[in-house]
C-alpha cells in the first residue's frame, strides 16, 4: 500500500485493489470511520428521491436554462444545522443546500473539532465555523440529508478530505466540493501538490466507484481560489485541470466554478470560456461522457460592512450569474464582512439573489465584439497554462501540475501556500477587469503580455500614477469601500 506514495504522481485511474487497501487505513482515521459500509451506502443512495440528488437537479436546471441558488452554511451541532438548512430552504428558498465544514476538520484536527463541539454545547452557540461531519459521523449526516427536501453538498476546504468524503458520501450527501489544487493552494501553507492531488485522486476514485455502481455524485472544484483578484485564466485553468483529474478517476458529473471579478464582460467571458474549454479538453482526453455544469460565486473578496452596500454587491453578482447563464450561483449574505451570518441574513442573500435571477431570466446580453475578444483572450491564456502543464508533465497532467507549480507556470495570487510561487501580481484595468501587472513565470505569449500591459497603463494614465503594489492594495479594498476599481484616495 505505502508503495503507491513512492511512485511518481500519475494521472491514471487507481487500481481498485490499491484503492481498497488504502480505504482500510483511511477509515481508521477517526472512530466514526468504522460506520462506513459502502454497499449499504450505495443502497441508501439508490433509494433517494430524484429531487434530492444533486446531479439530477443540476441537469434539470441546465435543461430549462435557469440558474439555481445555493448558500454557504454550517454550524457545530446537528439539530442546529438542520434548523439552519430548513430555514434556508423554506424561508430563503434555496434550490440547493450546503453543509460547510469547520476549519479544524478541514485540517484533520478532529480532536480540536471535538472540543469545539463540546464548547458549542456549553455556550449554547456555535463556537465552530462549520459542521464537523467526521466527528458527528454517518448517522448524523443522514439525519441532516433526510431533514430537508433539496440536494445537499459538502463544502469545505480540506486538502486531505478522504475520511470526510467517506463519511459524508455514505452519509447521503450527493455532491462534494474541492480538489487537489483548489483545496490546497488557498487553504494550506505547507502541503505539497503531489500529496493533495493524491488524496483527491482517492476522493475522486471513491466518487468514481459510486458512479460505477450507479450512484452519481456531483464533484465541484473550488473555482474562486483565494477569492481576491484571481485572473480568470488562472482559475479556469485550475478548474479544468481538476475536472480532468477527477474524470480520470471515474467522476461523471462535474460543476466548474468561477469567482466574480466584477467587470461584467470579463465575468461572462470567463464563465463561458470555462465551460467551452472544459468540454473541449474533456473530449480530447476521452472524458466526453462527463456532464459539465457551471457555478458562479458572487464576489469572494472583502465585502462592505454596511448591509445595504452588501446587498448591492450581492445583486451585482446575481446579475452577472444570470447573464452568464451559470447553472448555479453561490449567494453571499449581508453579514459577509462581519461574521458567519445568522440564518436570517443568509436567507436574505438568497432572496435578493432570487429576485434578480427571476427578473433577468428571460434577458440576455447580446454577443458583442468586446465579449468575443475577452473570450478569445481568456481561452488563449488558459490553453497556454494547461498546455505548459502537460508539457512539463511529459503528457501527464497530474505530474505536470506539480511541476507547473514548482516552475511557477501555474501560480495563484495571495495564496497562503508555499507551493504557489507567489510571483504574479494582479490589478484591475481602467474598466475593472482583472489583469496581470506581473506575470511571474506564467507562460504567456508576448501579445498577451502586451495586452495586459497596455490595459493597465491606460488606467495608470487615467489615475496619473505608476501601477504598483499601492494600486493592488487599493483594488483589494475597493469593493469593501464601495468601489470596483481602487482609484487613488484623495
Amino acid at each position: 500500500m505505502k508503495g503507491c506514495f513512492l511512485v511518481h504522481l500519475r494521472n491514471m485511474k487507481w487500481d481498485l485493489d490499491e484503492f481498497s487497501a488504502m480505504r482500510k487505513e483511511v477509515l481508521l482515521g477517526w472512530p466514526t470511520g468504522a460506520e462506513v459500509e459502502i454497499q449499504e451506502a450505495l443502497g441508501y443512495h439508490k433509494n433517494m428521491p430524484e429531487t434530492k440528488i444533486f446531479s439530477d437537479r443540476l441537469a434539470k436546471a441546465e435543461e430549462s436554462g435557469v440558474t439555481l441558488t445555493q448558500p454557504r452554511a454550517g454550524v457545530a451541532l446537528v439539530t442546529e444545522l438542520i434548523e439552519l438548512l430548513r430555514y434556508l430552504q423554506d424561508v430563503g428558498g434555496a434550490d440547493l443546500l450546503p453543509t460547510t465544514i469547520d476549519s479544524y476538520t478541514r485540517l484533520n484536527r478532529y480532536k480540536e473539532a471535538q472540543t469545539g463541539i463540546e464548547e458549542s454545547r456549553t455556550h449554547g452557540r456555535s463556537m465552530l465555523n462549520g459542521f464537523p461531519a467526521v466527528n458527528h459521523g454517518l448517522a448524523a449526516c443522514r439525519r441532516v440529508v433526510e431533514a430537508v427536501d433539496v440536494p445537499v453538498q459538502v463544502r469545505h476546504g480540506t486538502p486531505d478530505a478522504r475520511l470526510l468524503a467517506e463519511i459524508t458520501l455514505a452519509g447521503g450527501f450527493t455532491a462534494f466540493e474541492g480538489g487537489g489544487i483548489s483545496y490546497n493552494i488557498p487553504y494550506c501553507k505547507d502541503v505539497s501538490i503531489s500529496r493533495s492531488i493524491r488524496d483527491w485522486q482517492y476522493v475522486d476514485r471513491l466518487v468514481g466507484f459510486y458512479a460505477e455502481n450507479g450512484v452519481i455524485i456531483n464533484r465541484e472544484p473550488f473555482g474562486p481560489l483565494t477569492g481576491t483578484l484571481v485572473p480568470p485564466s488562472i482559475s479556469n485553468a485550475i478548474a479544468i485541470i481538476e475536472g480532468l483529474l477527477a474524470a480520470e478517476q471515474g467522476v461523471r458529473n462535474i460543476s466548474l466554478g468561477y469567482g466574480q471579478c466584477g467587470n461584467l464582460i470579463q465575468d461572462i467571458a470567463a464563465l463561458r470560456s470555462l465551460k467551452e474549454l472544459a468540454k473541449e479538453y474533456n473530449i480530447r482526453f476521452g472524458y466526453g461522457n462527463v456532464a459539465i455544469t457551471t457555478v458562479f460565486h458572487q464576489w469572494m473578496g472583502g465585502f462592505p460592512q454596511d448591509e445595504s452596500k452588501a446587498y448591492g454587491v450581492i445583486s451585482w453578482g446575481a446579475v452577472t450569474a444570470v447573464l452568464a447563464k451559470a447553472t448555479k450561483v453561490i449567494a453571499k449574505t449581508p453579514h459577509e464582512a462581519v461574521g458567519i451570518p445568522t440564518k436570517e441574513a443568509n436567507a436574505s442573500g438568497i432572496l435578493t439573489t432570487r429576485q434578480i435571477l427571476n427578473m433577468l431570466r428571460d434577458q440576455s446580453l447580446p454577443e458583442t465584439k468586446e465579449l468575443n475578444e475577452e473570450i478569445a483572450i481568456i481561452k488563449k491564456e488558459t490553453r497556454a497554462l494547461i498546455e505548459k502543464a502537460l508539457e512539463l508533465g511529459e503528457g501527464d497532467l497530474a505530474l505536470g501540475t506539480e511541476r507547473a507549480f514548482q516552475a511557477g507556470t501555474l501560480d495563484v495570487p495571495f495564496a497562503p501556500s508555499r507551493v504557489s510561487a507567489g510571483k504574479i501580481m494582479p490589478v484591475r484595468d481602467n474598466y475593472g477587469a482583472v489583469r496581470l501587472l506581473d506575470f511571474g513565470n506564467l507562460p504567456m505569449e508576448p501579445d498577451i503580455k502586451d495586452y495586459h500591459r497596455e490595459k493597465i497603463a491606460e488606467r495608470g494614465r487615467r489615475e496619473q500614477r505608476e501601477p504598483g503594489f499601492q494600486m493592488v492594495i487599493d483594488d483589494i479594498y475597493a469593493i469593501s469601500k464601495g468601489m470596483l476599481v481602487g482609484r487613488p484616495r484623495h
Partner: protein
Amino acid sequence: MGHQVTVVLGVIGADVHAVGNRILAYALEQAGLKVINIGVLASQEEFVNAAIETGAKAILVSSLYGHGELDCRGLREKATEAGISDILMYVGGNLVVGKREWHEVEEIYRKMGFDQVYPPGTMPEEAIPQLLKDLGVDGVGGMH
C-alpha cells in the same frame, strides 16, 4: 532614523486568510517597523518563539475565520511563562463566530490579556498610530 523596533505578525490557529496579513505586513514596514511575519496557520508557540528569538516588542495576532476565541486563549500565559510577560499584544480581525456586539467581543479578548482589540475591517492606518505610541516609537520608526 534610529534602531528599528521589531514586531511579530501572524494569523493564528487553523486560519488561512492571507490577504490582510500580507497588507498589514506591508503597512507596518512602511511605518518603519521591522516585521517578522510568521504568516497563516501560526500556533501560539510560533508566536512566542518568534518574539523571543527576534526580541520583538509586540505580537500582532490576526484571526479572521471565527475560531479566534478557541485559538487565542492562553497565549498571554504562554508568553509570561516564556519570560516575555510585558510584551505588547494586539489582536484584530473577525474575532468571533458571527456578528456580535463589539463591546462584548472586545471584553472577551481584553480578559485574555490583549492590549488592543480591533474590529473587522480595521484599516492599518487606524491601528498603526496607536501601536507606535504604545511602542514609544515616533512616526518613522526611531525610538524616543
